[in-house]
């Protein structure tokens, strides 16, 4: 169990794709258990904050501490070692197309020499069982369904048993009937680990979020619960929720 905070951001400002726009600073301490949801109007901005929080991209301003240590100035080797402790499943970084499903999941363990091949395969199959994944693991990712690819990507992201995982829009390719298995797994996983999810799936945030960060290009808002979020007087939040007022989610 990790004693220090897995992620601490102090006045963290990510780079926006339009560099002339300066995003508002984010300050947060993410504990070692529970689910933090990043919500907002722009998925691009959410991704930029998520990547900054995960130590993936350079910061425009501010400080990021991962497991108590500042990210600034670390070497490439240290950054690579850090990746073993922070799972990051990116929407835009899919599975390796030239390896089959099982090989994709066990690749990190083989590369980092964490387990023998037999142990890695057993661990991967165990994880995929927890994810209710029924994919034919001998197939290349291109032949799998979006749900199966998402399940494999999550399994690959946590097979090294990182204490914290950041997920970028895990539901973006899934229809509502496919979301249950992912949500059940993430719910169980976040009881003992730290999960940070950028999502537009408000149903997930409603059920799972222990804290919500509403990120917009104008300001950042912090909420301790879903109730706090929906009862907010902030116009930005009201307008955002307005879009979903009559929807399935609320």
């Amino acid at each position, binding site marked *: 169990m990790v004693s220090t905070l897995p992620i601490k951001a102090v006045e963290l400002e990510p780079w926006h794709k339009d560099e002339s726009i300066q995003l508002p600073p984010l300050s947060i301490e993410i504990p070692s258990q529970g689910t933090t949801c990043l919500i907002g109007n722009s998925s691009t901005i959410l991704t930029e904050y998520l990547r900054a929080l995960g130590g993936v991209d350079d910061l425009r301003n501010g400080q990021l501490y991962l497991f108590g240590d500042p990210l600034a100035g670390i070497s490439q080797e240290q950054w690579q070692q850090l990746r073993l402790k922070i799972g990051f499943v990116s929407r835009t970084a899919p*599975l390796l197309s*030239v390896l089959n499903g099982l090989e994709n999941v066990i690749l990190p363990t083989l*590369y980092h020499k964490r387990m023998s091949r037999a142990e890695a395969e057993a661990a991967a199959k165990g994880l995929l069982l927890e994810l209710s994944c029924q994919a034919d693991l001998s197939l290349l990712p291109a032949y799998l369904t979006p749900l199966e690819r998402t399940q494999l990507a999550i399994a690959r992201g946590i097979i090294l048993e990182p204490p914290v995982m950041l997920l970028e829009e895990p539901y973006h390719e899934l229809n509502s009937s496919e979301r249950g298995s992912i949500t059940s797994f993430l719910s169980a996983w976040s009881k003992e680990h730290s999960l940070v999810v950028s999502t537009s799936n408000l149903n997930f945030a409603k059920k799972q979020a222990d804290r919500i960060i509403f990120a917009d290009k104008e300001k950042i808002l912090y909420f301790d619960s879903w109730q706090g979020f929906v009862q907010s007087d902030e116009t930005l939040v009201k307008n955002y929720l307005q879009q979903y007022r009559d929807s399935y989610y609320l």
Partner: protein
Amino acid sequence: MTRLALSRLYLLSGMVGRQVLRLPNYLIDLTVFIIRALHDWRMASKLLNRATYSSLVGQLIFSGVDALPAITLLSLASGLGIVSQLIITVQVFGEAGDVITVLTQVVALELGSLLTAIVLIGRSGSAITIDLANMKLNKEIEGLELLGINVNHFFITPRLLGTTISQMALVVYFSIISVVSGVMIAGTFVNAGYFKYLADIPLAFDPYDLILFLFKNLAFGLLIGTIACYHGLRVEYSRTEIPQQAQRAIINSLSIIFILNGLIALVSS
């Protein structure tokens, strides 16, 4: 008018300067690329782990084993069209020693290296460039970086080793098949006396030439892999860049291999 002429002169000199600097810049980029790849390989706790070993085996199968039919066909065709003709032609004007010198120096040590390199560039070099470029555009490479996997160690090193070992193995295979088949054809259809070359040729190789041959083909294989990987990873935004980079990889590989071959021949002579 004078200002216009001056401005044109500046533009022209700028263009000439950029063109002149292009080749040195490219060579510096390639050198830095290979140094970084080898540095990351050296920094790894083990030169090859199970994941990179699988990648290397895959590369050897693709670049080496799968290329055997093409190399076999090419070497037999060279034996028929070049070696047998050389034997017959040189025999008319020279001694048996001249035939052996031509077969060892020209066919086995020079022709074999170049033709094998051409096949490797066309088959594996272009495939490596396209493969890496697609993976980079699809962000598959970033996905692995986020898992703490070193791109140079996982993607580049196995490919460099794969093309280097494949070039070495294929050139030896090509040289043997082409010389033996050429002698067999000439001996069978022209003069049975030519069969004696089969026994004489292996003894005619100079150790210095063999070392140079090994060094040259190591360099060829390494360069083919390096140039292919370098251009594959140069793709940034669009799929339209892939054929452009593949084309550059092929042309640059061919140019550099031929120039290097010429330089080595010049130095060794």
